[in-house]
């Protein structure tokens, strides 16, 4: 291969990427989980813990007078609300722009929308977008810190961070720090529509770097073999197990995913058969994984990938995940704004 000559940044040994000013990507951007070193992850978790312990009034001074824009091209309940509440709890002003009620409807490009927000004083942009890679484009075009709040089928890094914090808490580990061995011996089974899931990609590339064994589970239509190409760096390699019950029996954490009907284009799937083979129901959970932590990034479709009573049971950490969103997003926001907390 021809060596392309415009290489500037540095690749850190073994893992993670350092963003430099010269790259055109602002420090503090959160675009992918690979971009974070294990030390970065530990730093974010430590900040989250400190912010949580802080008095509300003190917290509200950290980003007082600062402006953060939320730019949402897809609907969202959890991510948008928790980012917005996190920013407000830090004292920042927020403004929400959505594709349905802005000049985006008139055909304004992502670049121009970003430049407009910057001109109006936005110091960071939280972006959700249906196109994979949109956050890196926005970061490059605006030079502002961009926080990826989910891009297409690509990544959802803040979700992976909050999932990590949830796992640490539920397994009784110190939630304020991690290293490459923290999750050694822990098996996480991610089941469902992995093909279309940005949450699966982010978790599958983050958790092994902290030592976790990650098993991907689903029918071939939703989980192609190419998934094994996701990088785990020094962590355990990813595994695929098509038999849900065999996977579940090994799970310390069972992470279930929604079938993304809106992205299924062309994929033929028998939902009845899917429920039969892959639904996490009370009987399976009691028989195969009575101690596993049950997780789901939401939105959940009760009765499809997960039975309603399982979502509500004591093993379920689904509401805890949502709550962790606030803590973790506060931490990535102060990081983006260059504030030490």
């Amino acid at each position, binding site marked *: *291969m021809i060596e392309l000559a415009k290489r500037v*940044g*540095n690749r850190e040994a073994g893992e993670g990427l350092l963003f*430099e000013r010269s790259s055109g990507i602002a420090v503090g951007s959160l675009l992918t989980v690979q971009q974070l070193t294990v030390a970065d992850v530990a730093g974010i978790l430590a900040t989250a813990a400190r912010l949580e312990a802080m008095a509300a009034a003190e917290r509200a001074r950290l980003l007082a007078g600062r402006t953060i824009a939320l730019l949402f091209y897809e609907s969202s309940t959890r991510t948008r609300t928790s980012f917005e509440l996190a920013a407000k709890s830090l004292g920042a002003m927020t403004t929400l722009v959505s594709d349905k009620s802005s000049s985006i409807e008139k055909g304004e490009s992502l670049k121009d929308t970003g430049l407009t927000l910057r001109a109006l004083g936005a110091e960071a942009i939280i972006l959700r977008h249906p196109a994979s890679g949109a956050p*890196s484009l926005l970061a490059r075009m605006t030079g502002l810190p961009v926080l990826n709040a989910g891009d*297409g089928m*690509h990544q959802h890094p803040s979700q992976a961070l909050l999932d990590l914090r949830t796992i640490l808490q539920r397994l009784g580990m110190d939630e304020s720090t991690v290293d490459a061995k923290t999750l050694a011996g822990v098996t996480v089974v991610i089941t469902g529509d992995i093909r279309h899931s940005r949450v699966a990609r982010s978790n599958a590339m983050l958790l092994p770097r902290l030592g976790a064994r990650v098993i991907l589970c689903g029918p071939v239509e939703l989980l192609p073999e190419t998934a*094994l*190409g996701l990088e785990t760096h020094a962590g355990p390699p990813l595994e695929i197990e098509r038999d849900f019950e065999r996977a579940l029996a090994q799970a310390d954490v069972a992470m279930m995913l929604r079938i993304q009907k809106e992205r299924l284009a062309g994929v033929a799937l028998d939902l009845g058969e899917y429920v039969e083979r892959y639904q996490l129901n009370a009987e399976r959970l009691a028989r195969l994984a009575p101690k596993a932590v049950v997780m789901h990034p939401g939105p959940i479709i009760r009765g499809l990938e997960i039975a309603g009573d399982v979502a509500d049971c004591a093993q379920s950490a689904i509401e805890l995940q949502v709550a962790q969103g606030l803590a973790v997003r506060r931490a990535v926001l102060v990081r983006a704004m260059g504030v030490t907390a």
Partner: protein
Amino acid sequence: MSEILILNGLVVDPASGINESRDLLLRDGRVAAVEVPGGLASVAALLPRENQIDAAGLVVAPGLIDVHVHLREPGQTHKETIATGTAAAAAGGFTTVVAMPNTTPVNDSVESLRWMLDAARGSVVNLLAMPAATLGSLGAEITDFSALVAAGAVGFTDDGKPVLEDAVMRAALLAAGRLGVPISQHAEDTRMTVGGSMNAGRVAFRLGLRGIPVEAEVRIVERDLQLLREIEQTKRVRPHLHVQHVSTARALQAIRAAKAEGLHVSCEASPHHFTLTEEAIDAHSCMGITYDTNAKMNPPLRAEADRWAIVEGLMDGTVDCIATDHAPHASHEKEVEFERAANGITGLETALGLALRVLHRENGMSLAQVIGLMSARPAQVIGLTERGNLHVGSFADVVIFDPAVEWNFAASESRSKSKNTPFDGSAMWGRVQATICEGRVVYRAKS
């Protein structure tokens, strides 16, 4: 009478087998003489100095021929015009280019073909065209092939999309075969590539992009080869299929087998497909340039095994020619979300530098073979006999280049109206010093 004398150069003319020092006399737009050094001394003595080019240390070769370029005129002149695109061609050493028909409107009539080829468009090199194979390139009804060939068409294509329907492709091959021109096929089964924006595989999965599978190319190539076979057997016509920008090992293998079987099939490969792989889309993630839309084209960059198969196909002759698929786009059409970005990259000014670097320097292909892939052999694909060679009497189409210099391409200096290239800053091998088309100097490097 206009004359140019090119002295002391290493003449590499694959068509005549010359590969040694020669002096070359061009007169009135034709090659007038090719002599051993000093053999034209009496001409030199009478010719003004400004009509003489000292090519000592340089290669003198037939002007390059590109059977696949997009010049965007009419209708998309914010990307390129015939004048700017052919200026880029001249800077890249090309003296003949073949314009694709996906302009606005589509070039599907004698009227539009004549307009495109009119001198008023300002082409600085020999401009040829392949009009659309079907009306509006809609894939339903073939255009008026015989009238278009009479008006100068050198083949037919719906490039950008395939001729998908079996019956339409059969009719096109048969009609073109009777006229002795190729059907140039963009081999993509578009029923398998909906929403796809890069090669299907691990990189696409990691980036969360829908894939364009290898099978989409293979299926159309195999279907077309089967049509060739059927027509040859039943119609006493020997149609010519030209497969554009072959990008996969499997399609190339099918073409290799078909050639062995004796079918009239040719194919082209693009510099980006023998230089880069799908990894280029994500190659600069360390500096934030991931989802590099300048590495997005159709067919997409493939895996390393495919890239290597293309190199091998060029080496063993299965690939008939190098074609750039020069596809200029304005920056606002590339500075968008990857899935929404326009397909294609510019290529006219980087083709020779990449071919010499990758094929000649890195893989040991002879200079003569590289030049053949860019002159004599593309001439053969479109049936040109007086171009692509330096025979006495042929058109005075010549490229003079330094075969032993490394340099870095700068998109900002491109003659093309557009700068969409993944090779900005990339190392090139060999640099064009002058391009002469029909005896006129159409490009001269800054000294």
